[in-house]
């Protein structure tokens, strides 16, 4: 009987928590407000890498994620493409995750709305698509890029793409940005593209996996900047001077974080009260 009561109470509490979370996310979306964020050194480092690379440089953006993490990583992709295009970098998109290629196409279409016909496929950007193999494909790209990607996603031959004309190996690339939701991903780029070929690598990851990459941001510049989660994407938008999906998404995320903190406090009060009750009951029983 008492177990049934506890179960009902637990279910009721859980439903209330879920409802509160829905409200915490929905209300800031329905009634948006503006909260200022500030940029952090890790985001600024990634920004400076792109900012300091000369115009016309060929660069790689690797889309190593799928739609499950699109909320955090797609705003980063859009901001980085916009920054690279503002600096007139020529972007080579590729993917080590099967759906990464579509993520790249969607990000390019989004940024293309701002740049219009100024940016031409094959000249300013190209999508080489997905290739399985993780670290090994990066190693092979160090010998010959064409071996790994003989055609782009539109089935154009490597040699017929103007952007790739003078790019033989990954050593011709000025920097790599890996937007990574797991393995294979950023770690492979750090170990191979930076460790073996000395190419500057910056990364974007989900907030939950960002702490694992912090050791690579060191004096050796194994990682030249790290964007961790939606907040970093919002910071990047701030540095570029526009308010995009990440900045707008920060409001519900911030409110949800506050709710979680409130739940931690409420949970501790609940346990403290229960302990007090038990203690008092014991004292009464002992006489």
């Amino acid at each position, binding site marked *: 009987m008492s177990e049934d009561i506890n179960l009902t109470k637990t279910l009721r509490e859980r439903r209330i928590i879920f409802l509160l979370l829905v409200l915490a996310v929905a209300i800031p979306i329905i009634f948006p407000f503006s909260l200022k*964020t500030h940029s952090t050194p890790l985001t600024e480092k990634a920004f400076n890498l792109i900012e300091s690379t000369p115009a016309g440089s060929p660069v790689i953006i690797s889309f190593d994620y799928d739609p499950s993490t699109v909320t955090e990583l797609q705003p980063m992709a859009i901001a980085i493409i916009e920054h690279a295009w503002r600096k007139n970098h020529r972007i080579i998109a590729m993917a080590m995750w099967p759906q990464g290629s579509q993520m790249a196409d969607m990000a390019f279409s989004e940024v293309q709305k701002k740049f219009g016909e100024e940016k031409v496929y094959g000249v300013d950007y190209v999508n080489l698509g997905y290739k399985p*193999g993780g670290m*090994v494909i990066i190693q092979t790209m160090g010998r010959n890029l064409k071996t790994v990607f003989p055609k782009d996603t539109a089935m154009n031959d490597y040699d017929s793409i103007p952007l790739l004309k003078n790019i033989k190996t990954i050593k011709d690339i000025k920097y790599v940005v890996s937007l990574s939701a797991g393995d294979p991903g950023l770690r492979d780029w750090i170990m191979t593209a930076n460790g073996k070929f000395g190419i500057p690598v910056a990364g974007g990851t989900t907030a939950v996996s960002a702490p694992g990459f912090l050791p690579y941001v060191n004096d050796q510049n194994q990682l030249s900047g790290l964007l961790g989660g939606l*907040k970093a994407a919002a910071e990047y938008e701030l540095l570029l001077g526009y308010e995009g999906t990440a900045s707008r998404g920060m409001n519900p995320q911030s409110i949800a974080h*506050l709710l979680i903190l409130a739940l*931690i406090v*409420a949970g*501790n009060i609940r346990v403290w009260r229960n302990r007090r009750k038990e203690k008092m009951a014991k004292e009464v029983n002992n006489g």
Partner: protein
Amino acid sequence: MKSKIPQLLAFLSGLVILVAAFIPHTPFGMFEETLTNWFMIISSFAILLGQSSLIQSNVAKITQKAPNWKYHIATLVSFGVMLIFGLLWGMENTPGILGQGEKLAESLGSKPFDYLFEYAFMPLSSTMFSLLAFYIASAAYRAFIMRTFESNLLLITAVIVMLGRTSFATILTSWIPDSLHFLRLPELTDFIMQYPNTAAQRAILISAALGVVGASLRIILGIERSYLGGEK
């Protein structure tokens, strides 16, 4: 013999890759190039293997009427629909067997594969990932309880970092004078992430790397044979 030949192949492949890392010249460089090309080809076949395994396991569950077998039909139908649309009209710029499917793309706004990817697969995937937030909220209420010194330390750190990662962090602690700026939440968060967290992550990384070296040597030397199947 059945296990000796694969062991010998593993030994030679491992040795060549290891030596080529230090002597990247002929013949080791050439062997390494060939082996890495083979790896890429085998990886591609792994995708095919995954698809065949998906079909086999789902068909088996449907024929055996396993619990919730109807969901497995949904999996197979979804797989079949995406596969057929992808094969017939391709995706984005990639043409399919029937070309680019301009007429269909005109009426749907995009190719059938891309349409389903954008309006079915993407929202479903994001929804699945978002469900984590509900579990985290529930766990915050139930599991993040002050009990021992360690749990208290974890709790305090988590609260600082969580709050420091919100847009409120700056507003809440902007009143702290410049002489005590390190007590502002964003800076406190950065300190926790940069020093205690990085130190612990480095220790984990180094341990994991040593573990990988050990496991690789065991495979190369034939001590670890579980990858062959059936043996320990």
